Each structure stands twice: as C-alpha cells, then as structure tokens.
C-alpha cells in the first residue's frame, strides 16, 4: 500500500513537472536610433548652359552654374563624403546617340584651415566620376561639382530640343 502511494506520488509529481514550464521567458525589445553627426545639404543649385548645339555645361562662362554641396560633420574621423558628378540624364528627350560625360568634384571652401588638405588627400572611384573625402576634421566643407555633357560621341551631334536634368550624388558615409 505504501509502495502504491509512493508510486502515485512520484507519478503525480512527474506529471506536474512535465506540465509546468521548465523556465520563464519574455522577449523585450531594445530600440534606439542613431542620429547622424553628418549632414548633406544643397548650398547652390546648378544648371546647364548651352554654348553650342551639342554641349551642356555648368561652366559660368557658358551661362551655366556650378552646384555647391555642403557637408557638415560634428565628429572628426567618423565619416567620409562620397560625391559624384552625373553620368546620365535623369530626364531628357529621347536620345538616339551617346552622350559623353565629363566633370569634376572639388573642395570649394572649408570652415577650417585644417581641411585645406582634403582635396589633395581625396581618392576617386567609379571611373573617376566619384570622389571620396575622408572627413578627418569636424566642421563644414563645401564641394563644387562641375558637369559637361557632349552629344554624338565625338561627332558633335545636336541635342534634341527639350528639357534636360541630371543629378549630383553626395553622401556622407560612416567610416
């Protein structure tokens, strides 16, 4: 009888232990946001001049305007700026021939003399269209981006009449 009771007790405890969860669990999220210490803004919008039928250029001498991009960082040695001149039109009339793109990215001005070496220390990528600057000092840097588009692949064909737009890409990327 005692054995029976003992067995019943053991079986009961076993069943209880099987029914009860082995451990308590909870999933708690931890959310957070990172506010970039680097901002990119358009300082001066650019536009193309049309000195002849087959050229669009931002050169002021040809009635164009070079766009200026401003990059601000409040943290030194934390970000790099990647700035590219356009290599295609974002909108244009239908073009049946090739467009040759040239351009240049340069440091136009800075907020510190320490940044005067940015241009010399910069590197290029994407076939030269992109220039990368290590932002090793906190402060503001203004970059000018010139662009020239020639139609006809060297044959100097006239651009079809219409409106043309191209995009300069400027990014601030954490190192």
């Amino acid at each position, binding site marked *: 009888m005692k054995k029976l009771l003992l067995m019943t007790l053991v079986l009961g405890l076993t069943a209880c232990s099987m029914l009860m969860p082995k451990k308590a669990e909870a999933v708690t999220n931890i959310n957070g946001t990172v506010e970039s210490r680097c901002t990119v803004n358009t300082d001066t919008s650019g536009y193309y001049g049309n000195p002849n039928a087959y050229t669009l250029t931002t050169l002021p001498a040809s009635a164009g305007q070079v766009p200026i991009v401003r990059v601000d960082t409040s943290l030194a040695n934390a970000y790099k700026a990647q700035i590219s001149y356009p290599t295609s039109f974002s909108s244009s009339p239908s073009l049946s021939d090739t467009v040759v793109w040239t351009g240049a990215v340069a*440091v*136009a*001005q*800075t*907020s*510190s*003399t*320490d940044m*005067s*070496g940015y*241009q*010399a220390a910069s590197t290029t990528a994407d076939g030269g269209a992109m220039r990368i600057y290590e932002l090793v000092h906190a402060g*503001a840097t*203004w970059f000018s981006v010139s662009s020239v588009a020639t139609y006809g692949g060297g044959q100097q064909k006239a651009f079809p009449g219409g409106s043309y737009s191209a995009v300069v890409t400027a990014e601030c990327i954490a190192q």
Partner: protein
Amino acid sequence: MIKPLILWVLLLLPFCSFSNYYTFGYSGNAAFYGNTWQMTTPILGITTEEGMDISGVIYNYKAVKEVEDDFTVTVQNEDIDGGYIFQETDDWSGKHGMRIQKLIPMNYTPIEQFGKGSIETTGTGSIEDASVLYIYRFDGCRNPQNNENCPGYVPPMPVIPKIEIYDALEDDAVDDATKETDSDLYDKEEEESEQDEKEEEDEDRLELAMAASENALTIANDISQASLLQTMNAATNVKSYYVAQVPGGVYRESISLDGGKIVDNRNALRSLAQDNLMDDMIQEQYK
C-alpha cells in the same frame, strides 16, 4: 472654458507685441571697401543706434599662398574699452591656400561696444574676395523714443524759441537821446526843424500835385491819341466800299432844256449887290 482662454490670450498679448520690436538680419559686407572698417551705418548698411546688438560674425576669404609658406590671417574687432571683442586667427602655414568661411558666434553685444574692425595678415601670401558680415538683432524699443508704439514713449516737447526782450533803459542810444539839454536851444531847434519840415512837406505836396496833373494829361493825351488813331483806322477801312454794289445800273440825264437860254434874275442880283441886308443880319446877333 472659453472665457478663461480669452482672458489668457488678452493677458499674453502685450508680451507678444514686445517680440515684434526685434528684427534680425545680416549687415552688409564690412570689408567691401578694404581690410579695415568702422562700425558705421554707411559701411554696414544697418543702423548703429541704441538697441542694435551683434550676435555673430561670418567671414569668408580666399587665401592665396604656396603650401610651404607661412601665412596667418586674423579677423578681429577692437573693443572700445580696450582689447578685442573677437579675434579669430587662421594659420595657413604649411597648408594649401583656399577659400574659407567661418562663423564666430558671440553673446548679444551692443554695437556701440565695437571698435575698428580689420583683417590682418602675417607671412607670405595674400587674401582675395574678403567678406565680413555681422549677424544682428535690433531691439527697436530699447530706447522708447525710437518708436511711438514703444512702451514708455514720451511725446517730445516742441522746441520753444528763446525770445530776447528789448530793454530800452539799457540802450545806449536811448540814454543819449534822453540826456538833459539846454531847453531854450532845444525849443528853438525844434521850431526850426518843424518849420523846415513843413516847408519840405509843402514842396513835396506841390511836386506831387504837379506830377499828378502832368500824369493825368499824359494819360489823357495818350488815350485821345489812341482813340483818334482807332477812328482813323476805322475810317480808312474802305473794304466795305469795294464790295458794295449799287443796284439799278446807270442814272442817265433825263432833263432837257428847250429854248437854250436861261436869263439871270435881276432882282436877286440887285439885292445881293447891296450890303444893307448883310449889315442888318450882323447887327441882329448883338441885340
């Protein structure tokens, strides 16, 4: 619920109107005329009266130099109490020359505190296209007299001109004139002078009368001559005679004398040969 809100709005309204007296902005380029400047309205293009506070400076220039050269650029403003209100130095030594732009924030500082501003350089190099802008806040009611809408404004009193009162008793000329003199001599002189004055007055009156009559005659003569000329001109206007036409053509002699001889009236000849009748007629007019 609405009434308390309206009351709150009414209570806060005066504070809102205070904020309207602030205006914010930027000055003109202080370095436009050169690398030293005074904080005056013609140079800055903003008022420099009481209530103008400066809260920052933005400067921009292009440093032209070789990398290996030592070169520093200092942008500064003197403090009228001595020293400098701000002084920012850019050391370009061993660096590439390029364009730089800086913002120098500062506490609101009355513009009256600012002395001469300048951009000074040392070493080898130069600067181009310098620009210095002051960020300002103008409190239009710091001096309530700036604006009649400011709290505490007192209408100015009109300027009353100072009038100097003439005191005849202090006039030397009056003193001389009122000095005691010999009364007999004074009376005699007075009589003589009165007589002279009377004679002069008579002469003047006569001259005036003669001149008046002469003038009247001259005027009348002019008028009569003018009238005569006008009449003559009217008479010589014979144009109407040229254009007048007499109807009827030619009046021919219609009387004819038969017999061919007219005998003189002897009685009439006899009567006319005597002077009696003529004499009678002449005498008749004296009766």
